[in-house]
């Protein structure tokens, strides 16, 4: 594989291009800036990144186009622009050398590393890194996995990188298992194992709670039993103490009571004496009272009040009696007058009384009279109507006459008319005249006849109805006149010799008398009732007077008083004595507290006996209770009481807890917890076992990696030695390896190799690593040697010579020449190292854009 051309196209600058041939090529450029650009571009083209490495490229806007040939002399074109642009390959199409742009997938067989999988065709590119005092010149490699370190290490390689190309599968498998371990939890502090442990702890705590709950429940039950027993004991002991204390208390109480009773006894004795004195006075007054006739019953205030009332009532009744009596007499006189008057009326009535003046009779008379008057009225009305109808008779006669006349006239006219027809024989002058006249006459007569007939007929027709009515009225008048006559006869028979008016006047007189009689009878009756009432009242008053007197007598009789006034005097005397007696009695009652004197005596006797008993009891108690112990017992009792209270509270609390725990225990299904716990334990064992097995597997893989690393180290060092031997033609230089941590270090057998040897050894190891890892075959070597890469300050200016020595080293040149036979080797240097332009170079500066 070789590089033919490099074209650098800066975004803001002039394009420049480099062309290379086979073998050792040297590029010299005075413009270090341009060289810098070139190097940056080269980085883009030739650098392949180490796994996951991201290199920052400063001038990513510039393009570089490189023409490369692969090992089979196939032309490859490569263009890249920064990291963001995919690799483009231009493949040669043969004779016309036109290029085809291919995508990176086609280029993979050429560009992709089989193991690390990175895309990017690489040459071995390195530049000097630093040149410090007493240090070998170090080289910086654009492959990240290789670097130079202190202590004579020619090159150190990342072991992981080596393994990824030689046993990467093992590493990945190990990682997978490590992930599994991480997931399961390596130390019970995380992962699935921790979850299980937590769950197990939860279940165990639940079980423990259940178990502890049961144990606690049993303990509680025992404790409750003990508490109850202790409470019973305390109560019994307290009762005993209480009995003793009660005796002491009772003694004290009795002593106090004894004192009180003694004082009471003295008091009672005094009371007894006072009572006896009062009793004597009372007896005297009672004797006086008893000397009054009738005793206390006769001098009750009610009796006095009643006597007074009766006396007053008697006075009132006497007055009433007098009034009633007077009224009664007046009523009797009036009654007698009225009865006389009534007798007169009755006589008068009896004189004039006949059947004619009975009410029925009067009704008949009035009825006949009413009919008579009615008939008279009707007749008069008919007569007036008949007067009106009398003219109709003449009218109808006239109408009949007119009718007849009219008919006659019409007949005459007809006769006249027939004569002319049949010829009058004699048409005399008269005749003629008559004839002439008859014609007019006939007409006149006919017309008159017709009119008269018509008039008469119409008059007849018009009046004939009224004539019928007139006739009917005449008939009715006749009937009414008949009835009127009958009524007159009947009235005459009823009134006999009297006229109707006389009769009625007589009748009215009779009616007045009757009414007067009735009124008088009513007044008499009323008066009689009043007299009767007055009689009753008189009797009642008399009875009341009698009864009042009797009552008065009855209530005054016990006292022996004959009058109310006398009674009042005696009464007042009695009451005065009674008040005095009562006052004395009240005083006694107060002294004796409402009890009889005998009671007081009995009480005194009783108290004396009780006092003696109490004294005896106190004497006995003095023997039973020792006063000094009572205080101790009291203290003990108080302590016991406090303990009892505390125990009762505790018992209550425990019983409450017991109920709660019993309730909780009933709710828990221990089987479910135990079942889950057993399953969790099995799972934990399985996980632990699996973890253990995974760790064994990981150890196996680790051992494999270790073996592989050792094997690779030997292989690389052997290969590096072969390359060195080829380049230098000597066999004394040996490169060995050692594994330090995660890196494999390649060292030289020389204690301090010359810088040129150091460079060549680095190159050899680099090539060997490249061969063992990515196996790129004859990759070109680019060695860029501008001084700008050296961290050389002004003070270390002399060290520049050392770098120049390397650049000018013949040994290096020879070695590179030999190496250039197998692959393309390109040196890029700058003006700073002028002397490095070697006349022995096969090619000098070929192209500078």
């Amino acid at each position, binding site marked *: 594989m070789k590089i033919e051309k490099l074209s650098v196209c800066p975004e803001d600058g002039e394009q420049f291009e480099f062309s290379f041939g086979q073998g050792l090529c040297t590029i010299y450029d005075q413009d270090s800036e341009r060289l810098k650009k070139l190097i940056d571009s080269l980085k883009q083209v030739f650098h392949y990144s180490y796994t996951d490495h991201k290199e920052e490229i400063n001038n990513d806007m510039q393009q570089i186009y490189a023409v490369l040939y692969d090992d089979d002399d196939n032309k490859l074109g490569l263009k890249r622009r920064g990291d963001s642009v995919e690799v483009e390959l231009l493949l040669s199409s043969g004779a016309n050398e036109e290029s085809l742009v291919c995508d990176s*997938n086609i280029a*993979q067989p050429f560009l992709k590393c089989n193991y690390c*999988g990175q895309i990017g065709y690489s040459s071995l590119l390195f530049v000097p890194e630093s040149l410090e005092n007493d240090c070998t010149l170090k080289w910086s490699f654009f492959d990240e996995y290789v670097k130079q370190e202190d202590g004579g290490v020619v090159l150190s390689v990342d072991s992981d990188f080596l393994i990824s190309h*030689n*046993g990467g*599968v*093992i590493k*990945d*498998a*190990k990682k*997978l*298992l490590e992930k*599994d371990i991480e997931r399961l939890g*390596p*130390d019970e502090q995380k992962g699935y194992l921790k979850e299980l442990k937590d769950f197990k702890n939860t279940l165990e705590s639940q079980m423990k709670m259940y178990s502890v709950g049961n144990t606690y429940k049993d303990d509680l039950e025992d404790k409750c039993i003990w508490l109850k027993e202790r409470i019973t004991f305390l109560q019994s002991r307290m009762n005993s103490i209480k009995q003793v204390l009660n005796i002491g208390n009772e003694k004290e109480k009795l002593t106090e009571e004894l004192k009180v009773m003694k004082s009471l006894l003295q008091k009672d004795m005094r009371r007894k004496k006072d009572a006896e004195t009062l009793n004597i006075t009372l007896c005297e007054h009672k004797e006086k009272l008893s000397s009054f006739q009738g005793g206390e019953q006769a001098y009750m205030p009610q009796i006095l009040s009643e006597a007074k009332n009766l006396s007053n009532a008697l006075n009132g009744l006497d007055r009433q009696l007098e009034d009633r009596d007077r009224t009664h007499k007046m009523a009797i006189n009036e009654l007698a007058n009225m009865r006389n008057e009534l007798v007169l009326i009755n006589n008068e009535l009896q004189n004039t009384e006949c059947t004619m003046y009975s009410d029925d009779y009067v009704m008949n008379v009035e009825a006949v009279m009413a009919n008579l008057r009615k008939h008279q009225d009707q007749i008069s009305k008919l007569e007036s109507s008949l007067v009106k109808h009398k003219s109709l008779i003449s009218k109808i006669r006239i109408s009949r006459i007119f009718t007849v006349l009219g008919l006659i006239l019409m007949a005459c006219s007809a006769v006249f008319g027939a004569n002319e027809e049949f010829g009058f024989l004699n048409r005399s002058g008269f005749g003629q005249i008559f004839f002439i006249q008859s014609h007019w006459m006939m007409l006149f007569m006919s017309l008159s006849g017709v009119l008269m007939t018509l008039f008469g007929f119409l008059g007849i027709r018009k009046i004939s109805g009224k004539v019928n009515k007139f006739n009917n009225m005449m008939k009715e008048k006749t009937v009414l006149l008949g009835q009127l006559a009958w009524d007159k006869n009947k009235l005459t028979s009823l009134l006999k010799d009297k006229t109707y008016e006389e009769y009625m006047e007589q009748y009215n007189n009779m009616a007045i008398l009757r009414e007067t009689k009735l009124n008088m009878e009513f007044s008499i009756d009323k008066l009689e009732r009043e007299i009767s009432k007055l009689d009753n009242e008189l009797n009642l008053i008399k009875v009341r007077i009698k009864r009042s007197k009797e009552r008065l007598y009855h209530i005054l009789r016990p006292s022996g008083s004959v009058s109310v006034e006398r009674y009042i005097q005696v009464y007042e005397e009695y009451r005065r004595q009674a008040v005095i007696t009562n006052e004395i009695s009240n005083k006694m009652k107060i002294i004796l507290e409402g009890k009889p004197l005998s009671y007081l005596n009995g009480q005194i006797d009783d108290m004396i006996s009780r006092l003696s008993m109490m004294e005896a009891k106190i004497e006995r108690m003095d023997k039973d209770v020792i006063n000094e112990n009572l205080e101790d017992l009291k203290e003990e009792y108080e302590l016991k009481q406090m303990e009892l209270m505390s125990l009762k509270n505790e018992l209550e609390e425990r019983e409450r807890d017991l109920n709660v725990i019993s309730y909780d*225990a*009933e709710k*828990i*299904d*221990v*089987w479910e*917890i*135990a*079942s*889950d*716990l*057993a*399953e969790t334990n*099995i799972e934990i064992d399985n996980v*632990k*076992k*699996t*973890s*253990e*097995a*995974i*760790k*064994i*597997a990981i*150890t*196996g*893989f680790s*051992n*494999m990696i270790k*073996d*592989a690393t*050792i*094997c690779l180290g030997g292989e690389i060092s052997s290969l590096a030695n072969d390359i060195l031997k080829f380049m230098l033609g000597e066999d004394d230089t040996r490169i060995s390896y050692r594994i330090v941590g995660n890196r494999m270090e390649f060292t030289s057998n020389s204690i301090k190799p010359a810088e040129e040897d150091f460079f060549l050894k680095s190159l050899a190891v680099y090539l060997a690593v490249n061969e063992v890892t990515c196996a790129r075959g004859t990759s070109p070597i680019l060695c860029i040697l501008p001084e700008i890469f050296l961290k050389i300050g002004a003070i270390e200016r002399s060290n520049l010579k050392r770098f120049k020595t390397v650049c000018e080293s013949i040994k290096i040149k020879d070695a590179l020449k030999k190496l250039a036979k197998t692959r393309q080797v390109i040196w890029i240097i700058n003006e700073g190292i002028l002397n490095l332009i070697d006349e022995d170079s096969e090619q000098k500066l070929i192209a500078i854009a």
Partner: protein
Amino acid sequence: LSVIKILHTSNICLDHVLTDYHKGVRKDKRIELLESFDFIVNKAIQLEVNALLIAGGIISAGSVSLSTLDRIKAGFSRLTEKGIHVIAVPGCSDEKSDISILKELFSNKFMCFFSDEKWSVYQDIEGVNIYGIRSTFNRKNDNCLKDLVVGSDKVEIGILYGTFYQTPVTTKISPITSQDLIKSNLDYLALGHYENVVNCSVGKNICWYSGSPVHYSFNTFGERHVLLVSFKGKDAKVSRIKVPSRLQRVVHMDLNGKSFAQISQYVKRMTNTQLCLRVELDGVWNPVNAQLAKDLEDMLCDEFFHFEVCDNTLFEYTENILNFYEGRKSKDRDSGKKRGHDLSQIFLGKVQYTDNEQIDNYSYCTNKTGTDNELNIMASKLGLIALREVYEHENRKVVSMS
């Protein structure tokens, strides 16, 4: 002669944690256990037996709930009300910190719980002596039966939680030999501990494991039974009474030469939503089948009441290539597949010869035991799975890029 009838059972383990089953079906299984207990109680009443013998394993003391204890009490009450004696010895599952729970359960009349670590006798059943001992706590390594020699006209019955000679159990409790059985002169020895029915009789000395009447783990096989022991005089006749239980199977499959499709097809034939099925994969392990168990479970878990696949495949080492250098020199580097194979071989060599003590602080296995070997096998499997994943990933990447 009146016939004496005894119902013998053991290892009911009510409220067992049931971790052999998926969480989703455990509640149902728990209910099934309780139903089996009720069945036994009903059966005892129906058969009018004289006594119900429970040779250990009434409850799982560590996980028993109050509701279950109430149900047991109710069951026992029903038995004692009918005059049926309930006699039991503690089993491993009954032991927690103490056996107070069981003592409380057996506190009524007609009940006997042998909680002494010496043989005691229960004589409340006419014509019968029942001997029992607590063989679990301090005496689990002692041969308890050796201490018992009986001889009377009565029917002599022993009840013991222990391991009869050559019984296939993982944890041996109070070992019992045939000689001890003969020497004890018992007419019937009711054993508990082993989960399946076994006749351990020697000559005229009748001795049975009743087995567990329920499936509470995959250690139980086939139908579940309780034993009805009838005595005519001193002659015991044992008959099995089937206890209704859910179907449960354990199927072994050799992976060699079989594809995933073939295996899944085989399992699909057993599809039953009421079945508890465990498939144990045997044969030589291959990284290709690393996810087989999981894939099968994912595919078929809904087809069964409970379905699980256990990977019991073996692992074979190839010891010819033990270091990277030799492998690298001898193989063609350009062949990725071949190279992967080489790396696998090298890895296996490394794991095989990895001393577990090299593994820093997280190692909890200090001695090179069967567990170490098991760990190495697991490590090898996991490492090869990881290598395969890396290769597959790499190949995928190459394919996608090309």
